[in-house]
């Protein structure tokens, strides 16, 4: 299966990834190769099988009680933030 430059630009936009002009040809080739490999899945007859939902048979998602367990640690967490002011994360202006 073959993807072209426009496909890659579209996927990169969906994935929120800025790619340079020089990077694009390698992704065109790489993703085309990967999707070629993925094409081998067509060999399998899957008409009688449901998609796997959990790696362990019979397990379902455990739910926790709907109670507050976390304390406010925003100062600790914001130590890793690129830009913070008055306890808020700073981003470029969204509404002009």
């Amino acid at each position, binding site marked *: 299966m073959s993807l072209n430059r426009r496909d890659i630009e579209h996927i990169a936009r969906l994935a929120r990834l800025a790619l340079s002009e020089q990077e694009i040809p390698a992704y065109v080739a790489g993703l085309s190769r990967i999707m070629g490999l*993925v094409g081998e899945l067509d060999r399998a007859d899957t008409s009688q099988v449901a998609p796997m939902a959990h790696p362990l048979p019979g397990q379902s998602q455990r739910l926790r009680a709907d109670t507050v367990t976390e304390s406010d640690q925003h100062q600790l967490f914001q130590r890793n933030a690129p830009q913070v002011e008055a306890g808020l994360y700073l981003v470029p202006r969204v509404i002009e």
Partner: protein
Amino acid sequence: MSDLHDMGVAELSAALQARRLSSVEVTQALLERVTRHQAHLNAFISISAEAALAEAARADVQLHAGAAGPLTGVPIAHKDIFCTRDQKTTCGSRMLANFISPYDATVVERLRAAGVVTLGKTNMDEFAMGSSNENSFFGPVRNPWDAARVPGGSSGGSAAAVAARLTPAATATDTGGSIRQPAALCGVTGLKPTYGRVSRFGMIAFASSLDQAGLITRSAEDAALLLAAMAGFDQRDSTSVELPVPDYSGALATPLKGLKIGVLKEFFDTGLDEQIEQHIRAALDLLRSQGAHIRDVSLPNLPLSVPTYYVVAPAECSSNLARFDGVRYGHRCENPRDLLDLYERSRGEGFGAEVKRRIMTGTYVLSAGYYDAFYLKAQRVRQLISNDFERAFREVDVLVGPTTPTTAFELGAKTADPVTMYLNDIYTIGANLAGLPAMSLPCGLSQGLPTAMQIIGPHFAEERLLNVAHRYQLETDWHRRVPPGYA
């Protein structure tokens, strides 16, 4: 007593308990060795000398007071995917080059509570995506057996460090072979437990339905000791399984008489190095001489493991890595024009080429119009592969085959084409897709490079795997071989 750096976890534990060695003494000697070999091996991303010595001193107090457990004072290293408080956790990425986690991963917390000393954080492929450790932002790791060759990946730093006797053991993670493949290429023992056996909390996510924490050690005996401390239910991991942790060490010596071993036919069909095949056949003969029954087993859908994985893993990766937005933590680009520009350039600059390739592959297979054809199709084939394993384990106790198709390859040899690189994991991916425990054990040397066999078991059969591995290691010394120059 052997050289201090050549001692494994069990041996060090005994020497520490008997007060023949102090933890400070061991930690100092290993830190010196880690530092000395850092420039050429690049096995570590960070070395925490000061903290390690303080932990060792505390361990010595406990040992002196007779209040120590079997792991008290034993130094290990953590793969830099496990979050550690007050010490950087980079995941091998520029994105997290300066990230300091506000909490410890459960694995780190439990091993800390058991008294281990942390020497530092080991190098890895960025976000655990790779089979050669060439995708690390911090540069490739070299294979101690031959510096021109890769150590495997993604836990390449952990495997190289254990092989070069820089640390007796290291934690690692395995999504498609990232423990077993580097263990195989570096001649050390690798254990990937059952999905859900060890908590994933604080382990930076790549593909959440496949990721599992495990170990790289010198022996099965050492892996048993460490797994007992790491495993068990954790409320903070929603797929952690609520099952008691068995006495792994106690089961090691069980005789193999009557054990039913299945030889994975599909793994020997194509592309396997002849020497590796010979070594595995010899290992099977040895197990047979110990009373095991050996028969061929066929898993017809197993050859579809690699294409299945390269839909499921990238799909989960694209979702998991969406959290890196340049706002709350991680790399942020300079002078963003607007919010979209901030997201796109922060991510474009912060992620390396392989990570971006996988994010895009995942985005593509999950996108409108392709989801059924690719993602659901892959999850159906995944179920077929899982069913094949389940059928096989009705007939046999464990499955044996190779871990890798070849021995360690040269740096740069497989970087041009992603699919060539992906095929390194052809024998390891099946266990991840089905959530099964598996081990890799050294079983020979071919032209000076380690060869390895893999043992796969049914869910939660770690005890049995460690037992088979230990019995094999009692009769052989491949796991004791030291790379030239590191004795």
